[in-house]
C-alpha cells in the first residue's frame, strides 16, 4: 500500500516567504496523480517535500500509513525522475541504473539481473556501456526512468520529466510512461505516481486525477474529464483547455447575462437557478462549443482573424470589446456568409457562470439559450 497523503502541508522560506499554504491531498494507491499549474505555483516544491529533498515547515506527509516528515529520501519507498535527468556523468548507463542497489549492498548477481530486466523493458540494452554525455535527450530520459524503475518503489515522483524533449518525442514518452504504469498495475505492483508538469496536455492525457495548483494552493482536484467539463473556478477554467476558455465579464440581470449591448438569456433552468447570484459575473464558453449559425439566437461578433489548422479553423472575433476565440470546422467556416460579422451560438449545455468576486463557478449545470 503506497497511498500518499498531504495534511495541511506548508512551506515557508526564510520564515516569512510562505510558498505552500496548507495543502490537503489524498493520492490513492496505484493512482496516477498529476500536479499541474503555472510556473511558481509550488508544484515542484510540493513534490520535493514528498521526496524528502525539501524540509517541511508545517503539516504532515504520509506514505502508506507511515508519517515520513523526518525520514530521509531513501527510506520513503520513493524513486524520482528529475527534470534534467540528473544522470551521474562519470558513470556509464549500467552504473547509473545500478547505483542505488550497489549503495544498498545487494548481491552482484541480483543487481545484474535487475539492470538487464529494466534495460529490456525500456529498450536501452545497447546503451548500457555508454556515458550519459553520449546519449540523446530521449535516451537519457529513458535511463533516468530506468533508474527509478529498478528500485521498484511504492511511489514514483516525476518532476517535469518531458519538458526538455522535443514535441514528437514528448508525445511518444507520454504514452510510454502511461503504458508502463498500466502494465505495472496489471502485473499487480500497483505503483502510485505523482507527476509534476506545467503542460496541461500532459496532465490531461496522463493523469487518473489532476491537481491544479496556483500560488501554493490547490484550486481543484478532479479527473481530466471533470476538470474540463466542470471547472470549479475561473483559474481552472482558464488553465485547462486549448485554446483557452473564453471568459467574458458582464452582469447578471434576472436570468440573463448582459455584455455591452448584447444579452444572453441563460434559459429557465440556469437562469432561474442563478437569479440570486451576484450581479458582476464572468461567462465562460469553450472555443469548441461555438457553432457558426446564420440565424437564431447567437452572439454577434466581428471577425478579426482566422487561423487555418487543417481540419478546423481558430476564429478570433471581437464581441463587444472582448476577444472571442472559437474553433469551427474548416467546411463550416468556408460555408459561412461572406461578411465580417459572424453569429456564434454557444452550446447551451456547456456554459459556465463565475462569480467575479471570488472566481467560483456558480453554474455547474448547463442552461439553454433563448433569443
Amino acid at each position, binding site marked *: 500500500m503506497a497511498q500518499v497523503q498531504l495534511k495541511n502541508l506548508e512551506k515557508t522560506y526564510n520564515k516569512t516567504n510562505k510558498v505552500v499554504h496548507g495543502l490537503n491531498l489524498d493520492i490513492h494507491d496505484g493512482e496516477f496523480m498529476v500536479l499541474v499549474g503555472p510556473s511558481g505555483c509550488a508544484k515542484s516544491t510540493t513534490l520535493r517535500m514528498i*521526496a*524528502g*529533498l525539501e524540509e517541511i515547515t508545517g503539516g504532515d506527509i504520509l506514505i502508506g500509513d507511515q508519517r515520513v516528515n523526518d525520514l*530521509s*529520501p*531513501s527510506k520513503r519507498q*520513493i*524513486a*524520482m525522475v*528529475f*527534470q*534534467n*535527468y*540528473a*544522470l*551521474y*556523468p*562519470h558513470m556509464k548507463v549500467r552504473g547509473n541504473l545500478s*547505483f*542505488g542497489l550497489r*549503495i*544498498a549492498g545487494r548481491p552482484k548477481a541480483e543487481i545484474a539481473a535487475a539492470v538487464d530486466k529494466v534495460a529490456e523493458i525500456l529498450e536501452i540494452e545497447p546503451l548500457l556501456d555508454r556515458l*550519459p*554525455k553520449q546519449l540523446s*535527450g530521449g535516451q*537519457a530520459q529513458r535511463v533516468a526512468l530506468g*533508474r527509478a524503475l529498478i*528500485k521498484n518503489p511504492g511511489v514514483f515522483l516525476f518532476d517535469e520529466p518531458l519538458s*526538455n524533449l522535443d514535441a514528437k518525442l514528448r508525445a511518444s514518452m507520454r504514452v510510454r510512461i502511461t503504458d508502463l504504469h498500466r502494465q505495472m498495475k496489471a502485473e499487480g505492483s500497483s505503483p502510485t505516481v505523482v507527476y509534476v508538469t506545467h503542460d496541461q496536455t500532459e496532465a490531461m492525457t496522463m493523469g487518473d486525477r489532476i491537481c491544479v495548483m496556483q500560488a501554493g494552493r490547490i484550486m481543484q482536484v478532479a479527473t481530466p474529464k471533470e476538470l474540463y467539463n466542470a471547472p470549479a473556478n475561473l483559474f481552472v477554467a482558464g488553465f485547462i483547455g486549448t485554446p483557452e476558455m473564453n471568459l467574458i465579464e458582464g452582469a447578471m440581470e434576472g436570468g440573463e447575462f448582459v455584455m455591452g449591448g448584447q444579452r444572453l438569456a441563460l434559459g429557465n433552468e440556469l437562469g432561474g437557478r442563478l437569479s440570486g447570484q451576484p450581479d458582476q459575473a464572468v461567462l465562460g464558453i469553450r472555443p469548441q462549443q461555438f457553432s457558426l449559425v446564420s440565424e437564431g439566437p447567437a452572439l454577434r461578433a466581428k471577425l478579426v482573424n482566422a487561423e487555418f489548422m487543417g481540419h478546423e479553423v481558430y476564429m478570433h472575433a471581437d464581441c463587444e470589446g472582448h476577444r472571442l476565440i472559437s474553433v469551427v470546422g474548416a467546411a463550416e467556416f468556408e460555408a459561412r456568409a461572406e461578411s465580417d460579422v459572424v453569429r456564434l451560438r454557444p452550446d447551451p449545455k456547456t456554459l459556465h457562470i463565475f462569480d467575479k468576486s471570488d472566481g467560483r463557478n456558480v453554474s455547474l449545470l448547463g442552461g439553454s439559450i433563448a433569443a
Partner: protein
Amino acid sequence: MTDIHLSNTTSIRTQDEAAAAKRARMDLISSVVRYALLFGVGFLMLYPLIWLVGASFKTNSEIFSGAGFLPNSPTVEGYVRGWQTSTPYTFGRFFWNSFLIILPKVIGTAISCTMVAYAFARFDFPFKKILFGSVIAVLLLPNVVTRIPQYILFRDLGWLDSFLPLWVPSALAGDAFFVFMLVQFLRSLPTDMEEAARVDGANSLQTLVFIVVPMLGPALVSVCLFQFMWTMNDFLGPLIYISSVDKYPVSLALKLSIDTTEAFEWNRILAMSVLTITPALVVFFAAQRYFIEGISAGGRKG
C-alpha cells in the same frame, strides 16, 4: 555582341582571380609574420630555461664564456658530481625528503579541502557565514603574519626538525585558497545529481565520494598541482622548521650546494636545478589535459 559579352566575362574572371591570389599572398605574409613574432617572443621567454638545460652539460669554465646554450664539449660531470653533493647524502635523499613532504601534503589537502568545501557549499549549519568569512579573512592574511605564532605552536608540540609542521596544517584544510576555489567550483555544479544520489540511498559521505568527487575532478587536479608546485618550490617553510641536513628537501639542498663550496661549481648547481624542476614539469604536462577538459566533464545539460 556575343564576343564583347564573352570578353567582359573573361576580364571579370581574371580580375577575380587576381584579387583572390593577392588575398592568398597577403594571408601567407600575415601568417609568416605572426608565427615569426610568436616564435621569436616565445624563444626569448623560454631562453633562460633552455640555457639552464644547455649549461648543465657545460664545463664550469665554459658557462661564463658566452651566452649560447649549446655546450662545446657536452659533459654529464655536473650531474654526476652534483648528485654526490658535498654532504654525506646524495641528491636522491633530498628528493626523497621532498617526496615525504609533498605526498601527505597533497593527499591531505585534496581530502580535507574537499570535505570543508562540500560542507560550506551544500549544508546549512550554525555560524556558517561567520566561519566562511573567517576562511576568506585567512585567505587575505599575509603568510608572514602567522609565522611566529605557528613556530611557537609547533615548538611546543615538539614538531621542530620534523616534516609535520610542513604538511599537517595543509592536511587540515589550512589552505584557505583551495577551500575557496573548491567552494566556488561546487557552487557552479547543479545539485540534481546529489539529490538523485540521496534518493538512491546514499548518505552524505557516499554522495561526496561517489558523486561529488568525480565531478570535482578538474578542480581537484588543479588543487593538487598547485599544492605540488608550491611545496616543491617552498623554501621558507623547510628553512624555518628543518635543521638537520638529512631532512632537507631539494629546495634547501640546492642552496646548500651554493653555501658549502668555496668556489661555486655552477654546472653542478645548474644540473641539480634541472633535476629539481623536472618533476614539476612532468606533472604539469601530464595533468594539462584535465585543465583543458575543465568543467565540461561536470554535469550533463538536458
